């Protein structure tokens, strides 16, 4: 599964995208952030306040309690500032 990071989430982690293989017990996007946060200081910094992170599954907005099983692509980013 591909994980994408944008804006300061991307900057803190240091990569824009990567392949990830979370264990089967990690089912929701919220759990996935927790698992990612354990992968190193950079990830811990990016996800230090998961409440402010927006999440998407296969390019659609999804809440933290949403499952991601079967997704090709998950994304993590700050609140949007377009327009």
């Amino acid at each position, binding site marked *: 599964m591909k994980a*994408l990071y*944008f*804006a*300061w989430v991307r900057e803190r982690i240091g990569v824009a995208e990567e392949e990830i293989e979370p264990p089967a017990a990690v089912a929701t996007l919220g759990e996935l952030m927790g698992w990612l946060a354990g992968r190193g200081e950079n990830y811990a910094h990016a996800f230090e306040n998961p409440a402010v992170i927006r999440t*998407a599954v296969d*390019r*659609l*907005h999804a809440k933290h309690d949403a499952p991601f099983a079967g997704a090709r692509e998950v*994304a993590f*980013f*700050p*609140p*949007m*500032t*377009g*327009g």
Partner: protein
Amino acid sequence: MASVSVQSRDYDTAAEIAALTAGRTDVGAVVTFSGLCRDDGGTLEALEIEHYPGMAEGEIARVCAEAEARWPLQGCRVIHRHGAIPPGANIVLVVTASAHRAAAFAAADFLMDYLKSEAPFWKRNRRRDAAAGQPEWVAPKADDADALDRWR
């Protein structure tokens, strides 16, 4: 029916209006919104706009479809730029066409409120004074959340 572009290049507002109205006699009202890059302090070199390719187009199209479901539109066009935008330059264009003005105004207003809060774009300010360090990310405004509540 809506047409959506996410692009780095500038756009031509007049050409976009013409594309929605040329050869038609059923359009009575066209509203355009242009968002421009401001530089209130006089220190901005450029606004840098990052986006999520694929999702950006998809989200804008989804918001357009919602506008078309709410109001009787005869045309709906959105262009959102990404990359480095200098002060005074265009960032985003919304054009709505309808038989009557109320629908065209409401749909354009709605589209902008939703784009602000739902479309995956992130802005940061690159200052002229490099000593200012890393460009800072623009924080979302509480106003924008309030604006969104008007449509719920």
